[in-house]
């Protein structure tokens, strides 16, 4: 295989890894934010839940930042086009997302009921909206998005943004994303908080995992019936990265199953997703919270890589100009850029994993409700 093609495939894979890291680590914090008002009945209980992720939310959020940066560099045209066509929802995501750093840092700095209640709602919004949008984006991309390019590479949007939030399949994907984040967040609270918070969190997590499994099954059937995209002429994977001269593309029902039919071993990926979503809640009920957390991560891996494998090599197909659909082949960075990015990723990713693991180890153990009241550092 030519080096450039290998680089494109590696970066498509790393894009999946980044999105999975985002779903697991950011999803966990968002899940805690969403359920905060329900697992914590008193202010101290809510603070205990917040402090369970307090030392880590900031580091976790970098998955989100890095996801944006890596798409910008590795798939510039995808970054430019997707962020702009989804403008209104992206801005809503952003508005809700930027509430979170302040909610963490400011909520407990004033001892006033209304101040804290306001921030608790901010946690709910800033957890639910981004996770919903994140999932809905997958739903929209699977169905194709209406856009085309002019000769110079400028995109034009060919449909109303209303569709992106109101179409039923995207809503299903958005809800599934929220359910998975509730599972991941709940699991964290089971590990890191005391009763009765942990018990409430476990009930929510179990429900979240099972609902996600149900939605994943419905979504799977839906995807197998919907019109996917497929090349109708041979495509050169080593092509110069431009969407302007793509080969013709057709929309066909069931096309998103093509890769699975061609390589049946790939069915293991959605199976792993199901395993995570069903075995996870069972493990939680049986008292194996750490195992449950990792099964939740497996569920996210399974879900995101199922979408990636179904669509490969498509990244964001166009319904109005299918030949200009963005793919791994035509939306990537140059070989030089992808090479250097890979070098940096290979050096720094092990370091990030190592020090993130160390940070979790240092802060291990349950958050004690009574110690929060005396610790002026806590959130």
């Amino acid at each position, binding site marked *: 295989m030519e080096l450039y093609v290998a680089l494109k495939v590696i970066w498509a894979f790393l894009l999946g890894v980044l999105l999975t890291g985002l779903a697991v680590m950011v999803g966990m914090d968002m899940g805690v934010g969403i359920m905060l008002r329900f697992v914590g009945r008193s202010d101290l209980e809510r603070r205990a839940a917040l402090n369970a992720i307090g030392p880590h939310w900031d580091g976790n959020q970098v998955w989100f930042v*890095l996801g944006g940066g890596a798409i910008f560099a590795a798939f510039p045209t995808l970054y430019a086009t997707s962020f702009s066509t989804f403008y209104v929802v992206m801005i809503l995501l952003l508005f809700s997302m930027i509430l979170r750093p302040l909610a963490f840092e400011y909520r407990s700095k004033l001892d006033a009921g209304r101040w804290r209640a306001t921030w608790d709602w901010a946690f709910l919004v800033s957890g639910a909206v981004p996770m919903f949008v994140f999932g809905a984006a997958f739903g929209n991309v699977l169905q194709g998005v209406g856009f085309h390019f002019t000769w110079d590479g400028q995109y034009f949007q060919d449909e109303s943004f209303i569709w992106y939030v109101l179409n039923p399949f995207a809503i299903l994907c958005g809800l599934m994303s929220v359910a998975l984040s509730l599972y991941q967040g709940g699991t964290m609270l089971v590990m890191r908080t005391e009763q009765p918070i942990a018990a409430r969190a476990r009930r929510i997590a179990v429900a979240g995992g099972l609902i996600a499994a149900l939605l994943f099954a419905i979504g799977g059937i839906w995807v197998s019936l919907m019109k996917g995209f497929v090349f109708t002429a041979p495509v050169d994977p080593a092509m110069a990265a431009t969407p302007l001269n793509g080969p013709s593309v057709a929309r066909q029902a069931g096309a998103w199953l093509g890769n699975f039919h061609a390589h049946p071993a790939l069915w293991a990926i959605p199976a792993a997703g199901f395993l995570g979503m069903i075995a996870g809640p069972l493990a939680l009920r049986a008292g194996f919270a750490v195992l449950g957390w990792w099964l939740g991560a497996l569920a996210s891996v399974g879900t995101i890589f199922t979408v990636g494998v179904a669509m490969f090599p498509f990244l964001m197909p166009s319904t109005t100009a299918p030949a200009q659909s963005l793919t791994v082949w035509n939306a990537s960075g*140059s070989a030089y850029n992808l090479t250097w990015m890979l070098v940096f990723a290979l050096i720094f990713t092990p370091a990030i994993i190592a020090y993130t693991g160390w940070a979790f180890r240092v802060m291990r153990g349950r958050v004690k409700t009574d110690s929060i009241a005396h610790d002026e550092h806590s959130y």
Partner: protein
Amino acid sequence: MTNLTVVELSRLQFALTALYHFLFVPLTLGLSVILAAMETVYVITGKPIYKDMTQFWGKLFGINFALGVATGLTMEFEFGTNWSMYSHFVGDVFGTPLAIEGLMAFFLESTFVGLMIFGWDRLSRPAHLAVTYLVALGSNLSALWILIANGFMQYPVGASFDPDTMRMQFTSLYDLIFSEDAQAKFVHTSIAGFVCAAMFVMGISAYYLLGKRHRAFAARSFRVAALFGLISTLAVITLGDALGRSDYLLQQTKIAAIEGLWHTTRPPYEPWKLVALPDDATQSDVFSIGLPYVLTPLVTHSFTEPIPGIIELEQEARPKIVNGIQAVLALQDYARTRSPEALAAFRKNEDDMGYGLLAERYAPGQDLAAITRADLPGVVNHTARATIPNVFVEFWSFRIMMALGFAFLAVFAFAAYFSLRNRLERHPWILWLAMLSIPLPVLASEFGWIVAENGRQPWTVFGWLPTFQSASTHSVGYLLFSLIGFALIYTCFIAAELYLMFRYARIGPATGAPAETPHAAGPMAAGTSGYAGKPWQ
């Protein structure tokens, strides 16, 4: 056809959100270094007062840090949401430093900031110190990569335009990183952050000294900050001079606008305009007062080199515009036909392509192919005029920044002198001055960014991609939606931030035998403590 209203609104939104983001960034950069210094003293000497200092200033650091992180997310989104053509055009080279920033710096800073706040009881002293160092390292490395990205916009090196992909393709990581502009700007900007943090610590300490509260704590913090601020201000001025010289070599339109030079200078007599009222419409000064013999050595570091003036720079741009129009037409042809002839025609003028793209704005129907022989001089005139940034804004932003910089030098010098001689409490005026100066270094930083980015106009990528070609093809409604949303949310944010900042600054450090601790019942209660701290209310 590009909707110019959308472009202007996109610029407004980016400018406002970037300036807002930079209200918080400098304090993060500088305070992280000051915290590391204070904690080092604590670990070496074991004196608990230095631990109190680290923890107290660390708390204020946290309040500020949250807003820096939140508003930074906006910046990363906006390239994609509002500048799609820009992102497509330079993502291959510009996205890379942003991604590396995440991998190398932001992860480091954000992971360890949690341990810095929560890890006091769980880490040994040296381990916690190491964590604080890593936070300082992470935030300053983050600034490095962001300014490398910004350096590319100012002085695009390490990439070249590729007609097959219609974008700049990355060619040299070394050139990108060691770009003269990026390096000069990184040191100037991050050390400007140190000045902001020094003034912040010194000003709040002065507030305690004026109220005769937390005296030991405040006197030590004041001294650390005054010395740190003095050194940093000297460095910022020196490095700013180096940055100015790099602009003289690399961005002549910017330096001409900064100094208000309508005509090429006549060394060595040429005066440096101290005050002037430049009028962009007539390209002349309504009045000006200058210091003779100062300008040439100041900018060029010589007594003989002339600095090109605006009218001459416009003349130089004219042939580039004519060639650029040919380059863009050939490129259009190549996009359609992929013919070697079209490619050869493009190659002949490719270096001037950006000027052709800039000319599109003034072509009939924004279509270069529609320019007739009769239209051409008019289009070239308009485009040549457009290659110059707004002189009034540039001239005055620069002077405000510079005047503030020299004022800080004086404030820190007096403060350090009186602090070292233990005479601060006999000279309350210096304490008042320090306290009232807290917001000024941030203001100077903001003007610095206006100089840098207004001076880059009309380009997003200097000489290659005009700003008006860079924006996403949104409707005005989209922009109004996001602008109004930002205005509302950001106003609430700054209100909450300032409220908490004032409150925690008033309460002061937790230990160290406070003379009088304000009642923590409500915000107003804090103000009733002995000292008449009216400026804080």
